[in-house]
């Protein structure tokens, strides 16, 4: 039953081994010439004052995009089984899905109207 997933795990293991090996071996293969400037963050001249690790700020728009992504991703989660079983579900399934997409569309239109999809 689940034996068809085993090769995926195999490929995962091989890819992981390759990637971890590459990352682990890199410091030993390459040269090491210490230079303080080399270890500084990339910036032309002045050190960036607002460090990302200690709470660097970035636009709140990204959160909105993430939330919209979740809404539509869940919609997709419902769409896939429906699409596969469409022939068995018949007219009932179609109407149900049109109603569902319609409700999501209302939310979508609201977000659009309120400027949630603008990126300034």
């Amino acid at each position, binding site marked *: 039953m689940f034996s068809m997933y085993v090769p995926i795990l195999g490929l*995962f293991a091989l890819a992981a081994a390759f*990637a971890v090996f590459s990352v682990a071996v890199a410091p030993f293969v*390459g040269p090491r010439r210490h230079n303080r400037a080399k270890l500084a*963050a990339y910036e032309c001249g002045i050190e960036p004052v*607002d460090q*990302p690790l200690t709470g660097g700020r970035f636009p709140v728009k990204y959160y909105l995009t993430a939330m919209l992504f979740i809404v*539509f*991703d869940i919609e997709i989660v419902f769409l896939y089984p429906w699409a596969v079983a469409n022939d068995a579900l018949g007219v009932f399934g179609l109407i149900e*899905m*049109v109603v569902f997409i319609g409700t999501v569309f209302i939310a979508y239109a609201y977000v659009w109207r309120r400027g949630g999809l603008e990126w300034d």
Partner: protein
Amino acid sequence: MNLLAAAVPLTPLAAADQPTLEDFGTDVWWIVLIKILGVFVLLVLMTLFAIVFERKVVARMQQRIGPNRVGPRGYLQSLADGLKLAFKEDIMPALADKPVYFLAPVISAIPAFVAFSVIPLGPTVSIFGQRTPLQLTDAPIGVLVVLAMSAMGVYGIVLAGWASGSTYPLLGGLRSAAQMVSYEIAMGLSIVAVFLYAGSISTSEIVAAQADGNQLSFFGLEFTGPSWFIVLLPVSFVIYAIAVVGETNRAPFDLPEAESELVGGFHTEYTSLKFALFFLAEYINMVTVSALAATLFLGGWRAPWPLSLWDGANSGWWPLLWFFLKVVAALFVFIWLRGTLPRLRYDQFMRFGWKVLVPTALVWIIAVATMRTVAREADLTTGQVALFVGVPLALVILVGLAAVSRAANRATRLAALEAAAGSNHPTEPEPEVLPATGPRRRPTGGPSRSEGGFPVPPLDLKVPPSPRLRAREPVAPDGAVVATGRRGSTATATEEDGDDR
């Protein structure tokens, strides 16, 4: 599962070589090992090939030759680059979050490899006497593996941007994440119609569903209709093609790596093999989405039409060739886009994804589902539905789109008209500008160079022919190459340089 299988019968004409879901997960262990190793090597080789191929194709498009030194015709260039990267210093930035900084390239590379595991490369073949499908594995949820893995890849990018402890990578990583999740929606929606038609999410069954076209009867004429989903579902294919370009961060949607704004994007602070892993992941993702495009829309490993008339085309090892031809064609389109289109602005890009691709995909899904349900309930053939519903609908949509785009572009069109009429400024008259003076132009009015005019490069330079043509160009009797745009010693060239009077 049995219920679905009964409700959605496979096409009866599917060849005996067509693997079904029962054929997977039954391989001997050493066959599985061979396949795993095969897919891994294949992906690495495809990456090496894709990089050289991209550089050479872009070079031709820009009238250059491209890499041609390392190996035969330069095809080992990317291998040399990879080895070089391995021997570069591995820098750990002082501000980086060490464990995450190490982990991010790994997280980025692993899903890239794993996503390819469900791509069907060919029919059932025999390897050392074992009958096995030419595909690592397949599952009832086949395509979901690809989608899940491409979603996992986002983590690698976000974490890389965050862990670098630097401003540009953070912004690049965030941009990349926002872009990938936005276009993942469009991509996920675009393939719903394919699942609808194929009645399955398993990649091998989707290929099987594209085996035979419907029998169409068109005013008494009987013929076999097209079976590839690119023909049956063109809108889905277009949305998919655009979405995966955004999903893989490729030009013209390569905003996370917009070097004029963000230096290198999320991998600015990475060097050595860690950087190479990101590079590898990006190109493997490109190969994977190309392979998925071939699987979902271009008939998978099945031979294209004129070749498919030959009986042996869809059995044995030949399909491997057709499959890779399709993948390379898709890769070429990726490269072509990069060579042709300028980068979009970020707001334009996000607007396009959320306001155009997503609603179009949703409307298209409803249209396809309605057509299919109506056809089934009313017992129409697909051809009739397409003729009576699809064609008028397509016309209405086309006219509507044309009207909308004309209205939207009205201002641009007016400005263009005015510019054509001689003014670059729609509101102001064109300011008086001294005509450019150059050594080659002999302007009648403005000051010449000797009178203090500003020297400009020669403006009447001819575009040289492409490097490929140059080899076959006629050679003049005195040995000089004619019309190459080189500054030669021929009489004509001297005559053109007549500004040293």
